[in-house]
């Protein structure tokens, strides 16, 4: 298994593209070891448009209209925010099967500052009708997402982390449900997504020692949300915490708050996310998280307080 989810995704895409010449990668000048062999072995299926994300989207849409299965690829903020209107009008309004692959979720590009932090993308992308959003948790899911995207009949956004993360899913997992309950627990349910799912599992282990029974749910498909299963998992705990590396407004916490409100469920909810500001903090990802209360220790303390069990 490759080191990062990006390489797991592109290794699988390479395999699929070898069998299907309609798969075309439209790259906005982003490299990856796994892409080098794609470019070398299938030059006709590898299109580098340069640092021009708007053009990447429209060209991909034209390719889709010409019967191709296009993937666009760049650092996540650039392949979402920079070309947002093209995604709206051309991918989503015309329901074209184009997949945007964005690498660098949350603070992945830790020391690069707010230009490279991907902290608003969930909010804006989930506002668009017709799109499916997959926020990848590990390499197994990344690989499967390449397959899912190839079969998709409509637009898709695959959001990936840059950091090598532990594998938590079995290779046989199909990821059809849109969410997974990774751990059951009756006191509080932490619903998380992407990189922070791993943090949620750490917090659950830490709190176990303090006799707090924590459930962990990985909501990896942020649109279309599997509301039925989500509510079912929520019902099994007394309280809900959302944990994400995304701004508070419009992200995972908003999804859960809206789902609870729309379904008339009155469950205590605490949303843990990036506060309403840009982070010019350096010294690594954990240091950024520490300053905004998203490191393991701070999250554990907040959850403990929320459960009313200060120890």
């Amino acid at each position: 298994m490759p080191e990062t989810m990006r390489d797991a995704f592109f290794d699988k895409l390479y395999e699929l593209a070898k069998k299907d010449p309609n798969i075309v990668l439209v790259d906005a000048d982003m490299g990856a070891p796994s892409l080098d062999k794609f470019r070398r072995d299938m030059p006709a299926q590898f299109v580098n448009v340069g640092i021009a994300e708007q053009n990447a989207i429209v060209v991909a849409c034209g390719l889709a209209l010409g019967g191709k299965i296009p993937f666009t690829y760049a650092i996540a903020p650039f392949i979402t925010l920079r070309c947002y209107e093209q995604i709206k009008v051309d991918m989503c309004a015309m329901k074209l099967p184009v997949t945007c692959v964005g690498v660098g979720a949350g603070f992945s590009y830790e020391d690069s500052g707010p230009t490279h932090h991907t902290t608003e993308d969930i909010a804006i992308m989930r506002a668009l009708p017709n799109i499916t959003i997959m926020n990848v948790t590990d390499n197994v899911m990344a690989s499967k997402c390449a397959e899912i995207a190839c079969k998709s009949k409509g637009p898709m956004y695959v959001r990936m982390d840059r950091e090598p993360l532990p594998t938590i899913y079995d290779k046989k997992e199909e990821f059809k449900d849109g969410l997974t309950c990774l751990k059951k627990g009756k006191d509080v349910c932490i619903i998380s997504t992407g990189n922070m799912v791993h943090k949620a599992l750490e917090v659950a282990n830490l709190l176990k020692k303090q006799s707090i029974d924590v459930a962990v749910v990985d909501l990896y498909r942020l649109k279309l949300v599997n509301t039925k299963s989500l509510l079912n998992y929520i019902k099994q705990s007394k309280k809900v915490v959302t944990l994400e590396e995304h701004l508070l407004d419009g992200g995972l916490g908003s999804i859960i708050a809206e789902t609870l409100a729309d379904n008339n469920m009155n469950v205590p909810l605490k949303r843990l996310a990036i506060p309403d500001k840009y982070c010019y903090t350096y010294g690594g990802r954990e240091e950024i998280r520490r300053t905004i209360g998203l490191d393991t220790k701070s999250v554990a303390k907040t959850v403990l307080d929320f459960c009313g069990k200060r120890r």
Partner: protein
Amino acid sequence: MTCEISEKEIKQLEKKANQIRNQILDMCVRAGTGHVTSSFSCTEILVALYHGGVLRYDPKNPKWNRRDRFILSKGQASVILYPILADLGFFPVKELNYFVQKNGKFGVHLQHDVPGAEITAGSLGHGFGIAAGMALAAKLNRERHMVITLLGDGECYEGSIWETAMFASHYRLNNFFAIIDRNWMCATEFTEDTVELNPMDEKWKAFGWNVKNVDGHSFEELLSAFHNFRSKRSTKPTLIIADTTKGKGADHLCWEPLWHGISPKGEDAKIAKSQLCEEEL
């Protein structure tokens, strides 16, 4: 290079252009909206493409795989394309009566699900790039059809146009044709008083395109420019800069930026109609 076209054929095309302008005016006056002047400026261009033997299409099979793809990137001018498509039989002509009306099939900006329309457009700088992607797909699929797109000159203010311009020449998309409706106006002003666009031809040549300048209201010049357009004598994509007048056909709507995006009403509509009718005679 010139092409042989008889006076009789030119007269027929002029008659068709006048018919289409009348339909545009009727549609827009009835609806009280629509980009009349932007459509009048490119009427001869579209009539030349669809009636001058340039494009391959099948109204009975709008998705015919071997059709040429015409992409109206200046999507605000949908009211030029809809009457042309209806007239050719892509959908019933009576549908034009329901333009922007309740239960109508289309509104002010171009909609991809209208037979023959190909894409949704209205936000500028998109269709051109989609067309480039379609041209690349045709090359990859080894298909022989051409991709032709019509841009507004004001659309060339969008940065994405130049991203695509670079891309299309780098990828040697010689199956790709762009036409700029150079009517010298954008939404509120003359282009050269807004942000100067000239020298348009030099800019495009510098971006790696073959460039031809034509009178965009002359069928002879337009058809000469499209003559042999399927030949691959050059590896470059081709641009035709069609010099036009925004509002052409109704003198009182010309050279007045405030008519952008507006349909004439009352006396203005009557004058426009009478001018078009006079021309018919």
